[in-house]
Structures are given as C-alpha cells and as structure tokens.
C-alpha cells in the first residue's frame, strides 16, 4: 500500500543516499590515493603512523588515560557544586546579599578571563609554594583546584543564563502559591534551568576532558605527558596519534550525545 507521494519520496531518498555515498567514496579514494603520492609521505608516515610504535606505546597510554579519567571524575562534582553556588550568588536579589553578587561577578570575570594554563601553574605551583606540607601540596589537588576555578566560572554563567531563561510567569505562579524565594528557586526555577542547559554543559564536559591534560604541566603523568615522554624517547610522534585515538573514543560519543540532547531539547520546545 504505497501512496504516490510515498513512492516518490522513497525514490528521492534512494537518489540522495546514492549521491552522498558516491561523493564520500570519491573523497576517501582521493585521500587514500593522493596523500601517499606526496613526496614527504614516507617520512610523515614513519613519524606519525608507525604501527610498531603505536602497538608498543598504546597500553601505557591507555593506563595513563586512567589518570585523566580520575581527575575528570573528581573535578565534575566540584565544578557542578561551585558553579551552582556562584550562579545563585550572582542572582541573589536581596540588598544584604549585594557583596555576594559582586563576588560572583568578579569571580566569573576573573576565572573566565585567565587562561587555564596560567591558572594551573599559578595554583599548582604557587599555593603549595606557600609552605603546605605533604600530602596537601600535591599537584593533583591544586591542579584540580585550578580546573574547578575555571570551569565553575563557565558553568556558573551557563546556569545563570538557564535561570534567566525560565519565564517570569513560572516564578509568579510559585510566589502566588505562597512559596518562598528559596523554595521557588529550588523546586521551580532550578530544576527547569538545569535541564535546559544540559547540552551546553555537555560541551563543557568535553572541553574539560581535554583540559585535564594541562595538569601534566605541573607533574602528573597523564596520557598526553606519557605520549610526550614516548615521543622524546623514541623521537617519533606516533604516540600522540595513539593518544588522540583514545581521546576521540571518548569525546566523539560524548559530543554526539550532547548534540542529540540539544536537538531533542530544540524539538521539544517547538
């Protein structure tokens, strides 16, 4: 039971798929055939795509990646908590809380403005340099603090935009029911705001996952540092390619998932 319209659309779809498949194949073939024809290809291949070195370094890189995952895992809840606190501080309306608002604004401006690398150095070397005893001077702790400072500033801004995007009528409805400011925020505004900014925060997580590598500047041997060590010992860049493969295995699905959430959100609102 195919209608005329359905048959027509099926034909169009087949045609589109064929064209897309065909053009993709042509591009791939050109890449595969033409790139190796370049005069320097052999050198590039030996330096970046050395199968033997790839296989030799991959297991160590993978285990170094566990450090990235650990740093990431303990940073995220801290970033979420601090980001929320800063967002709420910035949105505080009571006059007595004015210092809190100013603090929130300065915090966000400051830590979004400073490059993460600088903060990692400054906090990672500087604060322990004040004379903290072990284990409280660990680069893991202070490196994490640097990441949390930066990312909570970003997350605070995202959350604040989410809070402000909730229509005033929702607040009004809550206030008219007798809910306090606090309860209105907690039960009515925040749950909706947080849901609304999930996609933006997913992108933040992907960026954080990559920035975790900056902690290697102050000592921890995470995956990029491990790759750098191999590069130096083997005088070959393949370990970086291997590290990139590991990164992609995590970030691509995460980015796709974020896109999916964003699309779903967009569809839900139309």
């Amino acid at each position, binding site marked *: 039971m195919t209608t005329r319209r359905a048959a027509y659309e099926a034909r169009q779809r087949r045609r589109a798929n064929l064209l897309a498949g065909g053009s993709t194949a042509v591009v791939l073939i050109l890449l595969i055939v033409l790139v190796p024809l370049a005069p320097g290809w052999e050198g590039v291949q030996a330096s970046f795509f050395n199968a033997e070195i790839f296989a030799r370094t991959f297991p160590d890189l993978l285990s170094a990646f566990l450090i990235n995952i650990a740093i990431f895992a303990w940073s995220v809840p801290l970033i979420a908590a601090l980001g929320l606190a800063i967002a709420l501080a910035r949105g505080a309306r009571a006059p007595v809380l004015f210092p809190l608002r100013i603090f929130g604004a300065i915090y966000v401006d400051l830590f979004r403005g400073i490059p993460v690398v600088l903060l990692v150095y400054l906090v990672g070397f500087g604060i322990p340099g004040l004379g903290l005893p072990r284990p409280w001077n660990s680069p893991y702790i202070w490196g994490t603090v640097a990441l949390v400072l930066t990312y909570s500033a970003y997350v605070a801004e995202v959350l604040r935009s989410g809070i402000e995007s909730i229509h005033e*009528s929702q607040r009004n409805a809550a206030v008219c029911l*007798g*809910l306090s400011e606090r*309860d209105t925020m907690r*039960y009515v505004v925040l749950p909706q705001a947080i849901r609304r900014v999930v996609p933006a925060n997913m992108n933040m997580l992907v960026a954080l996952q990559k920035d975790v590598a900056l902690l290697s500047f102050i000592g921890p041997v995470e995956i990029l540092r491990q790759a750098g060590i191999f590069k130096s010992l083997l005088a070959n860049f393949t370990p970086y390619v291997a590290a990139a493969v590991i990164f992609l295995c995590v970030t691509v699905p995460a980015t796709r998932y974020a896109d999916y959430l964003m699309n779903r959100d967009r569809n839900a609102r139309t």
Partner: protein
Amino acid sequence: MPEPRLALRGVKKSFGDVEVLHGIDLAVNPGEMVCLIGASGSGKSTLLRCMNGLEPVDDGEVRLDGVDIAEPGFDLAPIRQKIGIVFQSFNLFPHMTAYDNVALAPRRVLAEDARTRIEALFERFGLAAHMGKYPDQLSGGQQQRVAVIRALAMRPQTMLFDEITSALDPELVDEVLDVLRSLRDDGMTMVLATHEMGFARELADRICFMDKGVIAEEGAPDLIFSTPQRERTKQFLASVLR
C-alpha cells in the same frame, strides 16, 4: 452588611509613565462572584494582580479581610494562601506531574502532606486518572483544571481568575467553566476577568465593565447586559455579543 472580603479604594497603578489603573474602588463580599469585563488593555488583569499583591499598587488600599495588603513593605507571603489565582496561560510547572504541581505548595508552605485532600480534588474535577501525567501530556482544558486544583489545594477563601479560558480551544472551554460553576456552588468568593459573556451573565452576582483603567459601569448582570447606561458599555457589548 458584612465586612467585605476584599475592598479596594483608590487603587492606582502605572507601568512607567503610563497609568493603567486610575483609582479603582471595588468591594467584594464573602461568597460573591464578580466578573470584570472590558476590552483588552482596559486593566482587568492588572487589577486582579493588584488584588493579591503580585503587582504592587502605587496608591490606594487593598484590604483583604480588613488588612491593608497594599501598604508598602507589607509581608505578602502569609496572605498568599488566603487568596488563590489562576492565570490565562496555566503556568503549571512543566517538570512536575500534575499531582506534584498541586502537592508542592501544601508540603512546603503548610508543611502538610495533603494527599487525601488533593486526590479528592482531582477526583472532584474529573482528573483522577491524570494525576501522574506531566503538563505536556494533558490537554489545555485539563491543564487549566490542574491549575485550579493547585490553587484550591492551599484552601484559599478567595479566588482570582485571569481570563482562564482565553487560551483554550473552544471545545475545551466548557469543562473549565464547569469547574467555576462548581466553586460557585461551594460559596467561594471569586473575581474573574473574562470574555465569556454568556457565562458571566448566567453566574455572576455583579458585573464590572472596565474601560481605560476605570470601572466605567457596574451592576447586576441583567442590568448591565440588557440596559447598559454608558455609551462605551453599549459599544463594547455590541461588539462582543454580535
């Protein structure tokens, strides 16, 4: 003559430089149902919002059970539960089920787990099967009834309704008006801003025709609808009853 439940005297309200209420006097007695009619922009909604303090009034008094809630700095929180309001756009909380929408305020404000009472309300307004649904799973009429239940769950003595059927498809209007009829039978004190002229004429104790920020004419429904005194009232009724 009993003390009015709600008494407004000389209420003025401006948005920026535009004065939208030019000194309103209005008294609503317990159990009375007052309908505000008038063209869009005549000040009906603003007047309702001044009655529960959602819009602070610039001048004049709003007395609820004798207490002037329009006094600058008056703490409105405790009186919110005495006067409920339902909006044109429902304003349900989209992330909560119908039940949770209703149960939130009693739990947080009254510290009461009002489950039986709330279930009875859903039952009464024919929504018992929909308590677990989210607002976007309900029709407009159903959502508006949930919004009414949400306000009723705080056990208000007075209810304000701000054009609550205006956003509904025509076939859903009646189910919401039935709710109002039922509340009328309970003896609830009600003030409605409405465009449902037939409904207003049938049920209201009093009609207030608002025009350009004043109550231009008020009286019993039959009088207003059959023998309006003012030219503006005649024009308005002629245009809506065509």
